[in-house]
């Protein structure tokens, strides 16, 4: 009887101290998509957050609406996705989600890929894509806006082409077989397609072109407000991750490639040859592009609200600014 009491009290002590022990290290749950454009998030989860004393759990997700809804409901604290209607609608409906920093930017010339077999014959210029099939990986996100920008260069709009939705990896065989004639394709797949002789990227980047923001990270607003110190530390760690990428050969350095490999099935040698993504060392983002994207989504009927949201409602850059101040501008 006595030994039972001892055991019981030991268990009781352990039970009551365990939460305290766990609380010593804060936990952050991060949702990601297995694509190398999420490199900053991978570096954050793998390197900088643990270094800052955090427990990190990463959850692999299927796409934008899932990322937004999981962060909005608090199942995850932090997530990333292509900027687009799902995120805009979530913010507009009052869900506790706020975009806080860009995740990656790119140049449309690096994304717009055309099937080699038709380029030069049936399709001599972008306008010849009228009525043809073009691949996008999702509707209502930055890639759709990118396609519109590419088509606009030769007088077409997105309504002039036939959109087929498929994941990035599937676009390469689709370009090969002719299921689509063009695609908005994210690295490393355009490079892969070029290596296979399947497709090419016909657009040249004009001098002084600015990269377009494509993906961004967002977190649960209620969590950030309840844990301002944690949120700040997360942002500082994220800034460090961004600087790992922005400086030197960041995106294609060996350490980065190792981390990318951990979270995706991308091949390092292909990534090395790919055109790098872009992320600003101070996590800056062109606000005019954001406004144009919102307007574009509204025109396509993707938004559930009529009046466009001011930028300040969509993005909360306060944490980013504070982190940049702390680490100093680069």
């Amino acid at each position: 009887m006595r030994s039972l009491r001892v055991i019981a009290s030991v268990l009781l002590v352990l039970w009551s101290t365990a939460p305290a022990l766990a609380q010593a290290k804060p936990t952050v749950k991060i949702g990601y998509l297995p694509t190398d454009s999420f490199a900053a998030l991978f570096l954050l989860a793998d390197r900088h957050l643990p270094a800052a004393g955090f427990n990190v759990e990463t959850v692999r997700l299927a796409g934008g609406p899932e990322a937004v809804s999981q962060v909005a409901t608090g199942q995850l604290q932090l997530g990333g996705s292509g900027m687009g209607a799902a995120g805009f609608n979530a913010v507009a409906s009052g869900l506790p989600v706020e975009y806080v920093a860009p995740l990656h930017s790119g140049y449309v010339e690096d994304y717009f890929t055309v099937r080699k077999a038709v380029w030069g014959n049936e399709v001599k210029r972008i306008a010849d894509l009228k009525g043809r099939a073009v691949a996008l990986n999702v509707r209502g996100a930055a890639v759709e806006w990118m396609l519109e920008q590419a088509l606009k260069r030769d007088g077409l709009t997105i309504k002039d082409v036939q959109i087929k939705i498929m994941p990035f990896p599937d676009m390469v065989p689709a370009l090969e077989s002719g299921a689509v004639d063009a695609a908005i394709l994210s690295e490393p797949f355009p490079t892969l397609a070029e290596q296979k002789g399947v497709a090419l990227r016909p657009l040249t980047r004009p001098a002084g072109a600015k990269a377009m923001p494509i993906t961004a990270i967002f977190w649960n607003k209620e969590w950030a407000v309840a844990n301002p110190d944690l949120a700040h530390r997360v942002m500082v760690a994220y800034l460090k991750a961004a600087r790992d990428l922005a400086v030197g050969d960041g995106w294609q350095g060996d350490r980065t490639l190792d981390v990318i490999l951990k979270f995706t099935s991308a091949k390092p040698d292909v990534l090395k040859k790919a055109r790098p993504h872009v992320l600003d060392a101070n996590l800056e983002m062109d606000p005019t592009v954001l406004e144009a994207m919102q307007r574009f989504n509204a025109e396509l009927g993707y938004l559930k609200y009529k009046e466009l949201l001011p930028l300040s409602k969509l993005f909360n850059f306060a944490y980013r600014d504070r982190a940049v101040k702390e680490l100093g501008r680069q």
Partner: protein
Amino acid sequence: MRRPAARGWESAIAIGSPLLLLAAWEAASAVGLLRAQFFPRPTTIARHFGELLADGSLPRHAGTTLVRLAWAFLLAAVPGVAVGLAMGISRRVRDGLDPLFAVIYPIPSVLFLPLLSFVLKPADAALAVTGAITSFFLIAYTTMTGVQQIDRTVLEAATHFGARRGRLFIKVLLPGTLPFIFTGLRLGLGLALIVVIAVEMVSAQHGLGALLWLSWGLLKVEDMYAALAAIALLGGPLLWALALVRARLLPWLPDVADA
């Protein structure tokens, strides 16, 4: 016969409990127990539904789905009944077609969409025909069973009294088979609706299934619920209309609950 009081209770519960649930949902959403952005209040959904009706978008989507469904049902029903009758009457037809049907029937209908999209260029045609396939087999088989279960003695008696092919068919075979044909049509209509909605979710830009799926992708949650409600409201009246036709044609039959 059930006592009137008991029947009154049953109707009360039948109407009352769903209303109670809706009221509970309304309350939970209003106070925040249910997150309103993902589970809007039923009144909000109803209002949004009304808005989509008024601006024409919901009727357009519903119309698209109904047209596809009508085609799918027609393509399934007419050949289905014809083939089913043939299979029921002629042993040779049945032996010839049965192996083919038995192999194709268990295949989940949506999988036929790729095949059909290769063959039928207008996207709508491929969607409608996909909806028709499994229904066709269902209706054919049910009709066949209907023919087979006709009491042989009735057939013999009729033949004995001089009824030949044509009259035999119209006066004996068809009336005897009709209840089964209608069961098949009912099941076939339900199945066609399921498949049309499913393929719309996969690859259409218009239609209730497309609206449902696209709204989810854009997190336009109220649209999603409105589409769901519209789909739910679609099935009931269609089946009821079919039941009406059946009651007219086969007035001597009591209401059969289910297959």
